[in-house]
């Protein structure tokens, strides 16, 4: 394939477009509410009314507002219908033909949409993720052509460094630096791996990117392969995401057919081959060395670093490993320039971040916002605040590795360093909102149970420490613990944090540490007086009272 072929293809698709496009979300969230039925109904209604030359019904990826799904959008009118049902879907076509519709009309100008800044999600909800033609029409694979014919690998790395992009998987390691290290490493082979093992409960950004715009990830990986000198890549995706896996496999097949993956891409000497590897349900496989062990067909257990994967990774070869969202940022950086990207966000956290906003909040869904926006803006403006008059108490970011940020700190800007300062982490982008009905000690126990069950068992601090911490949290919730137990819990947090082998163990105490920091009272209220202490406890609650589970 040549640039002319690519442009010709885009022109052809453009010419075939109908004046009106009805976009039907076919992402996992809306699919579960029968959006496939809705699409069929819409198609039938268009055929019945003989509007086939006027209206196109398009399968698209996530439009973001998953909580109000299934969503149907209409272009160019810009209308957005929410909670559409197979019964009222046909009436949307009636409305386009001059009639009326029973479907619920949403406001596409509301802050949930208006305050977003789509970079990674530009194509999401607009193009058909199962048609490479749609991606190419949107300018897809142009960036790959550009780097292969106009840029040296070192220039690409320089550009990524200059953009200030940091790893979107949670750690926030500078992406350019990682690329530079892999590019410099010597090895007879090199690998590029995309980490799609989105294990954080409460996060689904990567699922959405893979389901809505899979080619953007493939193109980003191919550019990375050229930049660091790798000709093979793996996409490691969780088995819990069957739709994402199937769309990736379709995308890889299409890209191969069009010569956009494989040997001699765009008539250059660059070869790049990609394979999907399916995870098997292990949270620890999000850790890079465990993930590579899993690709090698072994148990997903991490190993000590160094050597880092950049020097000795998959099968001992230098390996570049980045998160899905990181790769999805590459194409926009190449296309619009590193300067443009560096102009977004804050001084040390550039660009945008996709968040999954869920829990006790009015607008549930995916948002992409510039770094530096405050938590308050996200919760109150985009999220629309608490539903049915309850009071929001905290927001949890970073999943089992992160922490809870209390309402009084909601003016904290969302960037890697500020979140770290308040005791949480950016994480991969899950934001779970909790209201006054949520018991924070129970939240801590929930995460500790998760870490305990997901601990791979290799190092003792994590394997045994998480069990002990879980037992102590249980004891506190059963109102059987004393101040001494709380002290042991704090000691254990410190020990597990500093002595575990990998990120899972090192961050497992975070939910406990952060809830202790901001909601210590909730712990103290559950404590019992020490044995031998004869004065009444501050609360004086009887030991046999039921534990306050939520």
């Amino acid at each position, binding site marked *: 394939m040549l640039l002319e072929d690519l442009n010709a293809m885009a022109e052809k698709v453009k010419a075939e477009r109908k004046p009106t496009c009805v976009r039907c979300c076919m992402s*996992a*969230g809306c*699919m*579960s*509410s029968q959006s496939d039925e809705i699409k069929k109904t819409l198609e039938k209604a268009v055929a019945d009314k003989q509007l086939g030359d006027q209206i196109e019904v398009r399968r698209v990826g996530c439009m973001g*507002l*998953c*909580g109000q*799904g299934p969503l149907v959008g209409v272009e160019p009118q810009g209308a957005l219908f929410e909670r559409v049902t197979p019964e009222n879907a046909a009436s949307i076509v009636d409305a386009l033909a001059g009639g009326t519709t029973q479907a619920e009309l949403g406001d596409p100008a509301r802050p949930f949409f208006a305050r977003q800044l789509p970079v990674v999600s530009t194509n999401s909800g607009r193009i058909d993720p199962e048609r490479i033609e749609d991606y190419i029409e949107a300018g897809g694979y142009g960036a790959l052509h550009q780097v292969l014919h106009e840029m040296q690998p070192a220039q690409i790395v320089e550009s990524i460094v200059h953009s200030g992009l940091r790893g979107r998987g949670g750690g926030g390691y500078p992406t350019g630096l990682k690329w530079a290290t892999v590019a410099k490493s010597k090895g007879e082979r090199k690998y590029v791996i995309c980490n799609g093992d*989105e*294990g*954080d*409960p*409460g*996060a*689904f950004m990567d*699922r*959405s990117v893979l389901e809505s715009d899979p080619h953007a990830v493939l193109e980003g990986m191919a550019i990375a392969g050229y930049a660091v000198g790798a000709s093979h890549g793996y996409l490691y995706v969780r*088995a*819990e*995401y*069957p739709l994402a896996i199937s769309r990736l496999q379709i995308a890889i097949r299409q890209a191969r057919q069009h010569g956009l993956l494989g040997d001699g891409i765009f008539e250059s000497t660059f070869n790049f081959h990609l394979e999907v*590897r*399916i*995870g*098997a*349900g*292990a*949270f620890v496989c999000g850790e890079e060395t465990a993930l590579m062990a*899993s*690709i*090698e*067909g*072994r*148990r*997903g257990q991490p190993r000590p670093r160094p050597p880092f994967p950049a020097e000795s990774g998959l099968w001992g070869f230098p390996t570049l490993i980045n998160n899905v969202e990181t790769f999805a940022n590459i194409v926009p950086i190449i296309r619009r320039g590193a300067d443009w990207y560096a102009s977004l966000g804050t001084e040390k956290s550039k660009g945008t971040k996709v968040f*999954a906003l*869920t*829990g*006790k909040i009015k607008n*549930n*869904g*995916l948002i992409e916002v510039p770094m530096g926006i405050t938590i308050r803006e996200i919760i109150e403006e985009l999220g629309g605040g608490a539903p049915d008059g309850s009071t929001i108490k905290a927001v*949890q970011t970073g*999943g089992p590795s992160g922490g809870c940020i209390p309402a009084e700190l909601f003016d904290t800007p969302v960037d890697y360093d500020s979140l770290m300062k308040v005791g949480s982490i950016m994480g991969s982008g*899950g934001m*779970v*909102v*909790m209201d006054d009905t*949520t018991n924070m000690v129970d939240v801590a126990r*929930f995460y500790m149970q*998760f870490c305990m069950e*997901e601990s*791979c068992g290799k190092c003792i601090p994590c394997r045994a420490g998480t069990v002990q911490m879980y037992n102590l949290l249980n004891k506190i919730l059963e109102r059987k613990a004393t101040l001494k137990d709380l002290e042991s819990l704090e000691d254990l947090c410190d020990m597990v944090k500093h002595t575990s082998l990998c990120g899972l163990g090192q961050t497992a105490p975070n939910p406990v540490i952060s809830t202790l920091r901001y909601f210590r009272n909730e712990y103290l209220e559950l404590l019992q007086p020490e044995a031998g202490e004869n004065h009444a406890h501050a609360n004086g609650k009887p030991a046999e009272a039921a534990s306050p*589970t*939520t």
Partner: protein
Amino acid sequence: MKVARPPLPSQDKRWKIIDAKMRKLGYQPHALIETLHAVQQAFGYLDEVALLWVAKSLRVPPSKVYGVSTFYNFFTLKPQGAHTCVVCLGTACYVKRGAKILEAIEVYTKIKSGETTDDRQLSLLTVRCIGACGIAPAVVYDGNVVGRLTPEESIEKLKGYVHVA
């Protein structure tokens, strides 16, 4: 060098599908997880016959095959019921009381998470987040995700498969 491969365990055509998967990956030891996925997809679970045959075919020690099969939550060594009900216990579902749904289903079906009913009609499982947080709390019935459920509704969906004495 040509290496002799073990014969298929039986005439069952599903073994051929699995063998094809291993061939595609060159019978390399690193094909283990992909192969186990294929076995589970074909048979619903991993039994001893399958594990030993995969071990021989990929020249991986049976201990390692067993280790991998038990390390990952997705693999099961027990046959599953005709229907599956997977309750999501991710954070968003937890905040929206997903645990109450599990509790209601456990009471209704009289089985615990990870078990199968005596008549092999239903297996009850839990999962750590299926990424359907926007529609929490969610349950997956036979592979179909259903969101925004109440404990009562979650039982309603099971009435077809479970015969309560």
